[in-house]
Structures are given as C-alpha cells and as structure tokens.
C-alpha cells in the first residue's frame, strides 16, 4: 500500500505559490487526490485564505513570529516535521534560490530525490509523475521520474499560471511545530535597483548584448523600452564583463517569457537562448548576419543598432499617436 498521498505546494514567494497551486490542482484532479498548500510566516492568515481559494483543498498554516522572514533552518525544520507527519506523495517547491537549497536539503533529510527547475510536469499512462528540465546549457531537455517518495520538485517563477478565483474554498488547519536554531544570521539586505528587477514579470523586454560598445549607447535601449513600456535586460557579458548591469538574462541568470523579446546586439549563445526560449515573439537585431540569435528569432533584422533602434523608436511612436 502506498502510504504517501496528495500533492503539496510551498514557496516563500506567495505569487509563485499560487502558480504552483494551479499546476498542483491540475495533476491532483487527474490523480483524484488532494492539494495542500503550506504557508509559513507571521500574521499570514490572509495568505493562507488566498491559497485556499486558488486551488488548495487544505492549507497547513504555521503562524509563528520566528517564521516572519525566511530563515533556512527554521523553514527547513518546519517543512521536515510536516512532511514526516503527513507524508505527501509529491512536494512542489518554488524555485527561488532559497527555495532550491531548501528543497535539496529537505530531500536529503528524507533520503529522497529532488528535480530542480522543472519546466513541465506530466503524468505517464501509468499515472506516474514525470518532470522535464533543461540540461546541457539548453541543448537538451531531460525527462526524469522519481524512484522514491516523496517526490520533490522545484518550479521556477512563471512556469505555470495561477487559477482563476474560485468560490470553492479549502480548509485551513493551523499547526505548531518545533523549529531548529538558525545556523546562519542575516546581517543586511540590499534591494536591487527597481528598474532592473523582476524581468521575469515583464510583458515586453528590450535586451542588450555585446553589440553595445559604449555605455552611453544603452540610452537607445532605454528610450525604446520607454516607448514600448518595456523592461530593459541584458545578456551576460554586459553584466559580467562590463558591469553595466547587475543581472542578466540567460540560463545562469533570469529566465524570462515575455510576449515580446527584442534582442539588440545579442549574439545568442546557448545559455542566453535557454533563458528566452519561452518568449512568444523574439525579434533579433544584429549586424552579424551569421549571429546564432537569428536561428531562434521570429523576426530578424541585419543591421547596426545605432541606425535601426532610432528608426524603431520613431516607428513605434508614430504607431502610438494613431
């Protein structure tokens, strides 16, 4: 007999939790099982209520001042206790950087497997859960299944979508567990500049690559972004080598899926492509007609960004006035 039952969802990022619940609900309906959301924090009754209306049959809520902000050992011990007590068959965890480490540590305590950064979750004909994940820097997609339970997976932001608001509301169960002492202490938190964050959530992204030789030229991209109400992003060299940005788009940085991705002077190495492959429409502008970015673009313009971008700004502005 299988003693492990149900699908669990947890993320310290609440909007990500709701997205995971959407997928969890879909799989649970096919398996005719329950979805449980785990909500940890302090004064977070509202978050628990919201989870209960976005797909969870049950919400396990631990409300404790010690859980007010994310702390690895405290959060880990809470999740470990719950998992040992209630034995979920599948545990989906938000793939933030903290979430990933948390999932791997939880899986180690439970002596089980964890598949990180799943881009898809499906059921086989035998109703076994399989996960898909990007490997080899974007050159491969691996299909993986678990050999042991619980099956732990981490899910990146914007991989799945949250459900529509539902009248049906899950049950909230308040619990209390013993928490471990922290092994690390947070000294400071420094937010990144607002304009640079959350490219994951942008509908339109104007992205800059090595084709930008002077920092002043970034003004071109920024002006284009302003016209389109877009976010500005970049490929790794502009962040890593030139230090013009603190963040970049790509497999090792942010993975994005906007409606429109405009790649300006980006050559398109596989690590970058892996980070943008889910974009709806990709436009590439590059003066090198052999740039690999053109292989994965919907619309390709061979030309100098200094000429094309100002023309684009004008063309978009004209269209805006109509």
């Amino acid at each position, binding site marked *: 007999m299988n003693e492990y039952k149900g699908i669990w969802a947890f993320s310290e990022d609440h909007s990500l939790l709701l997205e995971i619940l959407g997928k969890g609900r879909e799989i649970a309906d096919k398996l005719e099982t329950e979805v449980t959301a785990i909500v940890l924090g302090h004064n977070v009754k509202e978050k628990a209520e919201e989870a209960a209306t976005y797909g969870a049959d049950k919400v396990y809520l631990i409300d404790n001042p010690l859980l007010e902000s994310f702390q690895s050992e405290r959060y880990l011990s809470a999740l470990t206790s719950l998992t040992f007590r209630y034995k979920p068959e599948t545990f989906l965890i938000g793939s933030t950087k903290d979430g990933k480490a948390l999932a791997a540590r939880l899986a*180690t305590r439970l002596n089980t497997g964890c*598949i990180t950064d799943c881009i898809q979750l499906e059921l086989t004909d035998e109703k076994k859960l399989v996960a898909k994940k990007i490997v080899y820097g974007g050159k491969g997609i691996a299909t993986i299944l678990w050999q042991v339970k619980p099956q732990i997976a981490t899910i990146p932001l914007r991989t799945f979508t949250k459900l529509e608001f539902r009248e049906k509301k899950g049950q909230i169960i308040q619990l209390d567990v013993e928490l471990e002492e922290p092994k690390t202490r947070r000294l400071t938190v*420094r937010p990144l500049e607002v304009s640079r964050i959350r490219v994951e959530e942008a509908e339109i992204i104007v992205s800059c690559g090595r084709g930008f030789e002077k920092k002043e030229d970034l003004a071109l991209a920024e002006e284009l972004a302003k016209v389109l*109400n877009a976010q500005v992003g970049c490929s790794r060299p502009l962040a890593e080598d030139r230090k013009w940005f603190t963040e970049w788009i790509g497999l090792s940085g942010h993975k994005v899926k906007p409606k429109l991705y405009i790649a300006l002077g980006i050559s398109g190495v596989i690590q970058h492509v892996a980070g943008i492959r889910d974009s709806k429409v990709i*436009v590439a502008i590059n003066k090198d007609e052999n740039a690999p970015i053109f292989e994965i673009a919907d619309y390709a313009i061979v030309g100098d960004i200094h000429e094309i971008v100002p023309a684009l700004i004008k063309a978009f502005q004209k269209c805006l006035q109509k």
Partner: protein
Amino acid sequence: MLRVIVCLKQAIDVTQLKMDSKTLRLMTEEAPRKISDFDKNALEEAIRIKECLGCEVVTVTVTAEEAKTTVKEALAMGADRAYVIKDPKIAGIDTLTTAKILAEAIKRLGAFDLILCGEASIDSFSGQVAARLAEILGIPLLTSANKVIVKDSDIIVERNLSSRYETVKAKMPALVSVTWGINQPRIPSLMAIMKASKKEIVEWNIEDLGFTSEKLESSDMTIEILDVSVPKIERKKRKLEGENAAETAEKLVKALIQEGVIGGGDF
C-alpha cells in the same frame, strides 16, 4: 592554518556538445570535459583566500571517468593537493549519492574550515550537491555567494538573490556555494603548470570510502533519467529588409501588430 576544500566537477563542455544529425541524439560521450564553470569560480575564490590569509587548498572530485587533465588544471591554478574519487560505478549517480560520496571523502581528509562549491554544474544544472553536502555534514550553508570574507572563525558572504543582495554570517566550518559573478578565474602560467606536475593527486575508488557497488546501484538512486531530447525551437525566422532603416522599422512594427504583441489598447 586555514583549510579550504573545493568540490570540483568534471563536466561536459556544453558549448562544444554536438548533436548526431542521424539519430538526433546529443553526443555526450564525444564532447570534451572541463572543470564546471561555477566550480572554477569556487576554486579561484579559494586561491584568493590563500593569497590573502594563507590556507591550504584541497580539491575533491567525484567522477566515473579519467579526470587527470581537469584536476591538473586545478593544481596549476593554485590548489595544493587533489583527491579524485574515480570509479566506473559512479556513472549516472544522482545528487544524493554524489553528496554522500563527497561527504565520506571529506570526513577522511580531517578537520577543515571551509568548503567551496559552485552553485550548479554547467551540464546537469541541478544545483543540489552543495546543499545536500552541507546537510549531510551538518554545517551552515551559504548559497549564491557573490563575495566571501573570512574573518577569524566567521564566514561572511554577500548573496546574490536576483531581486536583492543579502549579507549573511555563519561560524566556520561552513559550506559556501558561489555564483558565476564572484570572480574571474585565472589562467595558469606555464611556470605554474610545470610546478603543478609535482603536486600530489590522490585517487580513491568507492570501496576505499566504504561504499559497495550494490549500494550505489540500488537503494541510493532516487531519480531516473528516462530520456534527453533535443529541444525543437520553432521560430518564423523571417528576415526583414527595407530601403532604409525607417522602412525596415515600419515592417517590424506592422508584423508585431499582426502578432498581437503590441498595439491595440496599449497604443
């Protein structure tokens, strides 16, 4: 003296990985190997600590294949000694087993202050080994380090968490996983390469660490990779040209309105 252990994976050089055009499979066997990028950053960081404070830098590699060339590069960069756990039975093991083997090897190395790992490997990109290893060893874990400072018996790390930076402190011994951006790994000089040939490489197999092949094959495998396929990216690949930049731009704007990604209410 401080003792820093660096975990190095010999990974597939994904930039040189090719697809067999007949079978449409990735030719992973044929692709060259190298030190996984983030692990190289971890090693560079260890060597910088050595140059700054003085410490012993030891590398540990778990591999199913020959890894001499890879490990020699680490020694040339400035590691003092390399441990290689090489065994064909290691092929295809999961992150849990990798972490268990690393933990057993590290226990045999004696006392240490710091373990440095890369945040993830360039080939499988699972990003779990560091966290699992810290958990098995029961030491503090500080992930996504962008800056590492050793201060007396404390380790202070600046973490890059995408939307924010956090400074976190822990008591050593601790495990730190580093991001790509932390440093620029050095390229060893010819002199350093020559000197490295005299450095010690200790090779172990899994039995030396108390594992049996049965144990590796059966109970320890938590996941199974069913298939690795080459993603099909279907894009229109439409080239837009005009008499001048303005005309080309007009064409793009029209196409994007038709796609429904701009225009309408937004404009």
